[in-house]
């Protein structure tokens, strides 16, 4: 890779041992990609220094301080180095538990202590404690053309597609290194030619609500994998929540990091703009049959209609979604054997607290929880066997990770299941 004088100086140790280790790792990574240079970034999100139970145990003889985990795992260093405050604007994404409702999530006091120790390390290193998979709903909204280094595939696809920021899906090691150096390989979606469409998808059934946007996203991800789809046709009524669910689903069933919908996303004012000089390598259609296949796939795990857990908030719920749930509950109580957990960021929860939604949902028997979700935190109410979900992404992951049956439907279907204990929705 071609290095600037500033990058060479960091590699030579001018910024200290941690920045030297970070540059070494970023160069190995850039060479693996086939990148030729770095791009500067001042917007990084990741999970720096997160000590999972495994890492805490694995490194116990080397010490499990924040600096030890950051050095040995994040920087892939053989030695523990002094980790200074981060050099550029850095944010921590989601974590593994709600530090207030940890008992309800089945976590131990020891696990909480470890979690809070990690968090203190994050804050002490100048990293914003956002604790969410939706940084764009909690204070970190990039702008068009901004080069970012982000983890969290659902946030990356939102930033690229809806906003027009320039972001590759980064890993923990590359984001932690970027926080120290402000550098990330200039490859893929950082470059103009890396952002042109590859596949055309003609949408032939109406896609207008969150449920349908989510299913379309799941179809598109599976159909084009890590490529760049351009959609035309009957996609309407765009909103932040719909893009959030489309992108999260597309980044789970496949590896989509950027999509364009002609007329609705900033880099696709026209079909020609989205593809540039390229011709689509494949033309696909999404019709009635494809929609039914997606619905059946997402509802393929299980047959028991007695729902004991409803989970909302994948990716983390916006205040609009919490308002919707509070409105649907409207003074009703949850079914006696059914739990309702809504996951969001601390930032959005503070608005829900102030507006009264937290109380409405608590009075019904449900919880608003922060920081994590059932898949990421591996947490569900005790003895959960059958789950109802309004997120295609969560329906993709949760049965495999937690061994449960899952139903996928609209938010309204899910809240009905929470109050009746029964799944009573049908295919579109």
């Amino acid at each position, binding site marked *: 890779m071609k290095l600037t004088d500033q990058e060479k100086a960091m590699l030579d140790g001018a910024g200290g041992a941690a920045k030297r280790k970070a540059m070494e*790792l970023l160069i*190995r*990574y850039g060479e*693996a*990609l*086939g990148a030729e240079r770095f791009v500067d970034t001042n917007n990084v999100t990741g*999970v720096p220094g997160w000590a*999972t139970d*495994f*890492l805490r145990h*694995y490194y116990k003889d080397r010490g499990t301080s924040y600096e030890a985990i950051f050095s040995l*795992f994040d920087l*892939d260093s053989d030695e523990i180095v002094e980790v200074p405050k981060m050099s550029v604007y850095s944010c921590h994404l989601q974590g593994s538990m709600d530090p207030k409702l940890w008992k309800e999530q089945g976590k131990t006091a020891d696990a909480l202590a470890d979690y809070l120790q990690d968090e203190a390390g994050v804050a002490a290193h100048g990293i914003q404690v956002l604790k969410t998979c939706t940084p764009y709903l909690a204070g970190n909204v990039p702008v068009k053309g901004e080069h970012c280094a*982000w*983890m*969290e*595939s659902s946030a*990356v696809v939102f930033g690229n597609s809806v906003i027009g920021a320039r972001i*590759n*899906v*980064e*890993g*923990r*090691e*590359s984001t932690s290194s970027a926080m120290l150096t402000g550098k990330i*390989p200039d*490859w*893929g979606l950082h470059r103009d030619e890396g952002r042109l469409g590859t596949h055309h998808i003609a949408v032939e059934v109406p896609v207008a609500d969150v449920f349908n946007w989510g299913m379309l996203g799941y179809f598109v991800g599976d159909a084009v*994998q*890590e490529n760049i789809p351009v959609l035309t046709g009957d996609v309407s009524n765009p909103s932040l929540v719909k893009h959030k669910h489309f992108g999260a689903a597309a*980044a*789970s069933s*496949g*590896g989509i990091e950027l999509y364009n919908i002609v007329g609705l996303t900033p880099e696709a004012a026209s079909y020609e703009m989205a593809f540039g000089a390229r011709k689509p390598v494949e033309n696909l259609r999404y019709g009635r049959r494809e929609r039914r296949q997606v619905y059946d*796939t997402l509802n393929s*795990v299980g047959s028991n209609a007695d729902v004991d857990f409803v989970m909302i908030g994948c990716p983390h719920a916006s205040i609009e979604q919490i308002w919707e749930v509070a409105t649907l509950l409207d003074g009703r109580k949850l079914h006696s054997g059914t739990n309702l957990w809504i996951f969001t960021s601390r930032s959005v929860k503070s608005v829900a607290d102030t507006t009264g939604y937290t109380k409405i949902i608590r009075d019904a028997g449900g919880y608003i929880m922060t920081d994590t979700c059932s*898949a990421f935190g591996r947490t569900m109410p005790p003895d959960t066997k059958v789950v109802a979900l309004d997120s295609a992404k969560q329906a*993709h*992951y949760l*049965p*495999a*990770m937690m061994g449960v049956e899952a139903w996928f439907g609209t938010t309204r279907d899910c809240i009905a299941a929470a109050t009746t204990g029964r799944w009573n929705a049908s295919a579109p």
Partner: protein
Amino acid sequence: MTSEILENAIAGGRTIILRGRKVVGGTAEAEALVTRQTISGWGGVDPMTGTIIELRHELCGQCFSGKVLVFPGAKGSSGWSTIFHTARLAGTAPAAMVFTVMTTKIAMGAVAMHCPSVTDFDRDPFEVIETGDRVRVDGDAGIVEITKRK
């Protein structure tokens, strides 16, 4: 042409050589585990056992530890490198990787795993490598040598 090379290799017990580009250096030789499906790291793999857990994956339940993983590449969560990095520490990582589609996920994962890896081949590896074949990966030279199982 390709099938002719393959048939000759099987008949003569010879090796087939693929030339590609270094991703991560080092050499390893092991049995191949081949899939034409991309693999999800976080939520798709149990790093404690080196097993694929994604319910809809054709290799669901199969273990890649110590094998040469031949696949298109990575999909899904940005936790890909974290999961495979953890697999290295847990001793369950693949011995080497042969893949066809470069992404940031697999590049970071290969680097964090210290896993000899090659991509950008002169021929389609899926046409010549089958599960069970003996495969030697020379990451630095970008060379993959295949000895057919039968």
